């Protein structure tokens, strides 16, 4: 259990951003996805996307916002996000398409999971912004976009 108290910053603060950048390179950023209807809570227990069990409390006058930084130390950061994790599933047509997609996803620092022959992109913004990055692969029909069921 990681005991966290209070909001220590916001991911958009310039000072935080530079430190997050360093943490990001070591894969140390963890997101705590708070369901939108739970946003007002001052005390809750929730696991991050990497499975870390977090016990969070806030000061009575603190308000949790999307992007609030709850922990930053020892190469690890915990950031609150609202809503369920949106994902984008891609199935490459063949091995060469898979190599191309993997190369781009890595270079773009996308957060991904692997489900057999499908690459699952964990979205932090609108899908179109992601789509634009690999438009050429999509246009060449190298990838199949799988809609969520």
């Amino acid at each position, binding site marked *: 259990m990681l*005991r966290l108290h209070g909001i220590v910053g916001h991911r958009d603060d310039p*000072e935080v951003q530079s430190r997050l950048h360093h943490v990001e390179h070591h894969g140390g950023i963890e997101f705590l996805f708070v369901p939108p209807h739970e946003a007002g809570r001052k005390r809750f227990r929730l696991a991050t996307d990497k499975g870390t069990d977090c016990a969070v*409390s806030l000061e*009575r006058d603190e308000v949790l916002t999307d992007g609030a930084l709850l922990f930053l130390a020892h190469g690890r950061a915990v950031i609150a996000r609202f809503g369920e994790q949106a994902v984008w599933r891609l199935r490459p047509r063949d091995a060469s398409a898979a190599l191309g997609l993997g190369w781009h996803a890595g270079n773009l620092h996308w957060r991904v999971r692997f489900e057999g022959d499908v690459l699952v992109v964990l979205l932090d913004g609108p899908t179109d912004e992601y789509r634009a990055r690999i438009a050429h692969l999509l246009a060449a029909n190298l990838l199949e976009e799988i809609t969520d069921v």
Partner: protein
Amino acid sequence: MIATHDAKGTRMAAARVGIGGPVGSGKTALVERLIPSLLARGIDLAVITNDLVTAEDAERIRRSGLIDPARVSAVEAGACPHTVIREDPSLNIEAADDLERRFPGVELILIESGGDNLASTFSRDLTDFWMFVIDVGGGDDIPRKRGPGVVRCDLLVINKTDLAPHVGVELAPMLAQALDVRDGRPVLLTNCRKGEGIDAVVSALERDVLFRA
């Protein structure tokens, strides 16, 4: 600015836990069972009760000898009980702040709502976690009616299990339906008359609210 994170040194306000539910379902009885169990686990505790126009429940708990009477505060709603736990919880917030000032080490404040209907819910401004207490005597169809209290609370307690055979209620299907309307979120069975099921409620509070385990 980046504040320093210090898990041990920070002085944290008490966790605030609401207890709501229909009239007579056993909210005060649950409080009376929780007090000794929580104190036995070394939890620093205080209680707020809400009544319509009296301090009946507060007096009952003060007289019980279970807890220092100064740690029990009464709020008189004066109107529908849900108005002071949801629409304008300022009286209860003030009562909780006052307990924190008078007892700086307090870790947990139990806030009993006045008996209400199935639609009553607690404001997140007031409570960090809230339980809803219904009882077997109200009938096994209560969960099916999907009252917001039943559906949205953090923990649903079905009390008076001892009465099930007397009121023609089968506990297993009632529990299954309650879990179903709550999408699997926690439901516990208690018999406050005998103290059965209380440990599970305390464990839930220790885990989800007090972060002890």
